[in-house]
C-alpha cells in the first residue's frame, strides 16, 4: 500500500507542473505591458526607465528563462508583490486562506449532516412522501443559483428576522460563528442536492445486493442490516462525489464570499481583477488548483483504507 501512495504522489508532480504552466501562460496572456500596469499609479516613465525596470524584473529574458525563474520563485514561496498593497502576494493569500478553508470545511460538514441522512431515509422509505419531498428538494437545490439562495437567506434571517449578521466576519468567537452560518449554509447548497441524490441511489443499490438479502434471511434485525451492513458500503460513492465536487465548491465559494463580504481568497481574487492586480489573481487561481489536487490525493489515499478491494489490487 505504501507503494501505491508513493506512486500516487509521484503521479501528482506532472499535474502540478501543468497547472503552474497554465498560470504562467495566464500571466503572459494578460494584455498590456506589465511594467506599465504596475506603475499605473506612478508618474509617466520614460522608455529608458521602463526598459531598465524590465531588465531588473527579467522581463526581457527569453520565455523559458522566465518560466524557470517563475518556478524557482514559486518553490521558494515567492509569488511576487501585489500592486495595490505592495505586500507579497503569498502573504496576502496566506492571510485569507484560513477563512476560505473554514468556510468550505463547514459547508462540507453541513452537507454530510443534512444530505446524507436525507438521502438514506428516502432510500429506506422509497416511494413514500418523504422520498418525493427529499427528491424535489434536491432538484430545487441543483437548479437554484447558490449565491441567490444566499441573498434569500440574507433577506429572511438577516434583514427580516434580524437573527444573523448579513455581511462581514465577526471578531469574537461567538460573533465569528454567527457570521459563518449564512455563508456556509449557502455554500452547502452547491453539494446538498447532489449528495442527497447520490446517497439515495447508492443506498438503494447496496440494499439490492445479495449479502444484504442473506443478512435478512438469517433473521437479522432490519436496523442492524440497514445500518451495520448496508450503510458503510453505500458511503463509498459519497466520498467520490464530495471530493470530485470539491472544485465546484471552491468555485462557489468565490461568489459567496463576495455576497457575504467574507474575507477569503475568492473575494481577494475578484477584488484584485478590478484593481488590475494580476499577480494576485493568477496566484490565487494557482492556490485553488493546488487545493483541488491535494484533496484528490487525500481522497485516493483514504480509499485504500476504506475500500479493501483497492488495497489488494
Amino acid at each position, binding site marked *: 500500500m505504501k507503494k501505491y501512495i508513493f506512486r500516487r504522489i509521484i503521479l501528482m508532480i506532472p499535474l502540478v507542473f501543468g497547472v503552474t504552466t497554465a498560470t504562467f501562460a495566464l500571466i503572459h496572456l494578460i494584455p498590456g505591458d506589465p511594467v506599465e500596469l504596475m506603475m499605473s499609479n506612478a508618474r509617466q516613465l520614460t522608455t529608458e526607465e521602463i526598459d531598465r525596470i524590465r531588465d531588473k524584473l527579467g522581463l526581457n529574458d527569453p520565455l523559458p528563462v522566465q518560466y524557470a525563474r517563475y518556478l524557482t520563485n514559486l518553490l521558494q514561496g515567492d509569488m511576487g508583490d501585489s500592486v495595490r498593497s505592495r505586500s507579497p502576494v503569498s502573504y496576502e493569500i496566506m492571510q485569507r486562506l484560513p477563512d476560505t478553508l473554514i468556510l468550505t470545511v463547514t459547508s462540507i460538514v453541513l452537507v454530510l449532516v443534512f444530505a446524507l441522512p436525507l438521502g438514506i431515509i428516502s432510500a429506506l422509505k422509497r416511494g413514500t412522501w418523504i422520498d418525493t419531498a427529499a427528491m424535489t428538494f434536491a432538484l430545487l437545490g441543483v437548479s437554484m443559483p447558490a449565491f441567490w439562495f444566499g441573498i434569500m437567506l440574507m433577506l429572511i434571517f438577516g434583514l427580516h428576522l434580524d437573527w444573523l449578521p448579513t455581511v462581514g466576519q465577526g471578531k469574537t468567537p461567538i460573533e465569528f460563528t454567527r457570521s459563518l452560518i449564512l455563508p456556509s449554509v449557502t455554500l452547502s447548497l452547491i453539494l446538498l442536492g447532489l449528495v442527497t441524490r447520490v446517497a439515495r441511489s447508492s443506498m438503494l443499490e447496496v440494499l439490492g445486493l445479495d449479502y444484504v438479502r442473506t443478512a435478512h434471511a438469517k433473521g437479522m434485525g432490519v436496523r442492524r442490516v440497514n445500518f451495520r451492513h448496508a450503510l458503510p458500503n453505500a458511503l463509498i460513492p459519497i466520498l467520490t462525489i464530495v471530493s470530485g465536487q470539491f472544485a465546484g465548491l471552491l468555485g462557489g465559494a468565490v461568489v459567496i464570499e463576495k455576497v457575504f463580504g467574507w474575507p477569503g481568497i475568492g473575494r481577494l481574487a*475578484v477584488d484584485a481583477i478590478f484593481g488590475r492586480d494580476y499577480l494576485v489573481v493568477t496566484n490565487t487561481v494557482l492556490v485553488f488548483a493546488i487545493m483541488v489536487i491535494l484533496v484528490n490525493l487525500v481522497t485516493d489515499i483514504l480509499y485504500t483504507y476504506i475500500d479493501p478491494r483497492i488495497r489488494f489490487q
Partner: protein
Amino acid sequence: MADSIVELAAGSEIAEQIRPKSFSYIAFQQFIRNERAILGVIVLLLLVLAAIFAEQIAPYDPYKTNYANVKQPPSAAHFIGTDELGRDSFSRLIYGARISLVIGFLVSAVSTTIGVVLGAASGYFGGAIDMIIMRVVDVMMAFPLLVLAIALVAVFGPSQDNMMLALICVIWIWPARLVRGMVLSLRETEFIVGAKALGATETTIIFRHILPNVFPIVVVQASFLVAEAILAAAALSYLGLGAQPPTAEWGSMLSNAKELMRILPVMSIAPGLAIMVTVLANNFIGDALRDALDPTLRR
C-alpha cells in the same frame, strides 16, 4: 420461427404491435410520456417566446430611466416595481430572458461541438493527439470551473462576450472527456472491427458508425450544460465580470438589487426566481432526455 409469427400476424393489429420500432420512435414516445419533460418544454417555450417578443410583451422600455418614478414598490403599473433609475423591473426581467437563453444555448452548443471534435479525435486516433488533449483536460480539471472562467475574464477583460468565450474555454472539457471515453470503448466493439474488416474508410467509421452512437448521450449532456452555463453566467455577471450595466441581465440585476435589499426585496427575489425556473425547466428536459435516450436505462 420469429418470421413465421410475423407472417401469421400480417395485416392484423398484432402485426402493428410486434413490428420492430426505431430507436428514435421509442425515445420520442418515452419522452412525451414524461410529465415533467412536457412541463419543462412548455416553460422553456414560453421563455423563448418571451425572449423573442420582448418588445411586444414588456410594458415599458427596459432602458428608459424615469427619475420621477424611482424605487417604486410593486403596483398595477409596475408588477415588480422600478429600480433606482426608475426603470421598470418587470420589463428588464423579460429582456433578461433573451440574454440568459442565448448564453445558455450558445455556450452549450459551441463547447459541445468543440468537445465532441476533440474528444472523438482523442479517443479514435490515440497516440500523441490523445496525449496532448488529455493532459490539457487533466490540468483544466484541477481548476474550479468558475475560478478558471474568472481568471480568463480577467485576462480578456470583463464583458458579456468575453464571459461567453471564457465559459466555452472551460466547459468544452466535459463533452470531450465523455466522448473520448465512449469512442475508446466503441472502437473495440465487434461492429467497428467488422466495418474495418469490410474495408470501411476512417471517415465512414467515424461519421457513420461511431458518432451516431455517441450522439444521444452528447445531447443529454448538452442539455445539462445549458443549465450549467446559465448558472455560471449569472454568477459571473453578479460579480461584475459578465454583462455590464445597463444591460438587463438577471445576474447583474441581482447585483444591482443589493443596494435596495432593505426597501425593495422584490428586486432581489424576482431575477433569481427567473433563473431558477429556467434552469429547472432545462433540468426536467435533461432528465427526461437521459431516460429516453440512454438505452442502458431503458426498461
